[in-house]
């Protein structure tokens, strides 16, 4: 159709699609899924880090971690707002999450087990997220692209803080170094999974690339992450979590092992180490908070009514 043609032309010419523009239903649906998942990830992502807020070892570390978690909740807000421009409400999206009909990043189904995990999450998880998000700054949907630009600034700050936290550990006492190594060992492959399945197995990729909802392929982004991270691991004096990692002169990239995709799909299906707990936590928070949301809403109604009555 001419609408479709016009739409694709804009995309091809890097003109952003805006909320009021015509767009194919599939584009809208795909974006809602992707932005919604991204928003949910920010929200659920508070939990593994929140797990250590009450045990942060110094006041400064506690402040840094609080600020980070606060930022993440803020990112959740931007992203829900971006999704709302596509005609779906935040509450609808949250309901879909709680019913298990929408996902969040599989990384947050892994536990944070020692203090170095907090550094590693900032460094590896936020590091991986940034690589995804930097690419997405050029995504075709305007509100999403603008949210990404805003989020990226804060995320790169988090990644630097995470690296500095794990540096303290890697260069600290033997126990601290052991914690750092343990964290990297456990989080390396889950971080690689954050870029999604290999291009050949990725269901949504081709159409998303054409629509510039995605801008780079999963494997390209993963390679970029590995290339950037391996020298950092080496610098920290930690063992590489994957013994097959090796510089490939010819490709100009590191070779590395793929994560266990069976595990990945199992986590997606709900069988990750923390899926049940994360969702139980989120559902409980939502249900326990119902009276608060209703109370504040009712107060706003009363206030508005009083204002009308006074006019």
């Amino acid at each position, binding site marked *: 159709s001419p609408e479709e043609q016009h739409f694709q032309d804009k995309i091809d010419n890097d003109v952003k699609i805006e909320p009021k523009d015509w767009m194919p239903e599939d584009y809208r649906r795909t974006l809602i899924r992707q932005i919604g998942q991204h928003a949910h990830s920010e929200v659920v992502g508070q939990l593994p880090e929140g797990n250590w807020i009450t045990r942060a070892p110094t*006041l400064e570390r506690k402040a840094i971690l609080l600020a980070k978690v606060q930022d993440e909740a803020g990112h959740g807000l931007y992203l829900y707002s971006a999704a709302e421009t596509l005609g779906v409400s935040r509450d609808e999206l949250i309901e879909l999450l709680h019913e298990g009909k929408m996902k969040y990043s599989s990384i947050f189904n892994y536990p944070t087990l020692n203090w170095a995990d907090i550094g590693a999450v900032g460094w590896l998880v936020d590091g991986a997220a940034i690589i995804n998000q930097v690419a997405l700054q050029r995504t075709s949907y305007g509100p999403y692209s603008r949210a990404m630009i805003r989020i990226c600034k804060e995320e790169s700050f988090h990644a630097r803080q995470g690296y500095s936290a794990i540096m303290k550990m890697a260069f600290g006492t033997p126990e601290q170094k052991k914690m750092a190594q343990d964290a990297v060992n456990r989080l390396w492959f889950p971080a690689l999974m954050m870029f999604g399945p290999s291009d050949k197995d990725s269901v949504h990729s081709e159409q998303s690339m054409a629509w510039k909802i995605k801008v780079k392929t999963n494997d390209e982004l993963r390679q970029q992450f590995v290339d950037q991270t391996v020298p950092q691991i080496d610098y920290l004096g930690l063992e590489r979590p994957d013994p097959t990692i090796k510089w490939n002169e010819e490709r100009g990239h590191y070779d590395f092992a793929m994560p266990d995709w069976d595990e990945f799909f199992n986590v997606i299906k709900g069988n990750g180490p923390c899926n049940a707990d994360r969702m139980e936590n989120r559902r409980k928070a939502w249900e326990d908070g119902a009276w608060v949301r209703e109370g504040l809403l009712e107060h706003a109604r009363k206030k508005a009514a009083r204002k009308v009555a006074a006019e």
Partner: protein
Amino acid sequence: MAEVDKDKLYQFLLRMGDNTLILGHRVSEWCGHSPVLEEDIALANTALDLIGQTQMWLGYAGEVQGEGKSADDLAFLRDAWDFRNVLLVELPNGDFGRTMMRQFLYDAWSSIMLGHLQKSTDERIAAIAAKASKEAAYHVERSSGTVVGLGDGTEESHNRMQAALDYLWPYVGEMFASDEIDLAMAAAGIAPDPANLRDEYDALVGRVLDEATLAIPAGNYVHKGGRDGRMHTEHLGHLLCEMQWLQRAYPGCEW
């Protein structure tokens, strides 16, 4: 600044810093579990401000004590009986209503106290108070708004807020208890006598609770024992188990 007993000044600073430390910790327990995303953000922000204030109060306390202790040493290496926070701030969070009511009852005191401390004869204290005052003013605006919204909301939210107030009110009086430390601070112009802040507090709190359609409970029994360390609640010890874990399990590390 008039001469003042160093140990008394140290105790005063602990009281200020332990209040913000323990309340900041309690508020941070909400992370990721609040009723709505905006509240996750607000609570994290409140906790962050309180931890920031703690760094200043306990940092100065360590200097006054003169044993080379950092704010972190004081926060993470004292046991319950050495803490000097009021009992109010160590009480468990309860539901969101109890948390916000506690916050409001504290914020109201804190905003008034810090206002006076800006005029302290101790320049360090005046400077800390100047910075913290801005935060406290924002906190009390926010928490009073929530107390009003939920008090004057649905029947359930009203009842929960009234129950929170009934539970917490007996802990309010401790913030205004005076002892020889307070009198020494007042005499030196370092800090106001807390007893003198009560009228201002009652006016502020009364106005907000009124708007929230909540009633201050009858009975004037006051739970004390935190700010002089005589008798904390059982809750503080459990809180410290978590808060101090890493410093206790791995002593002498840099983090």
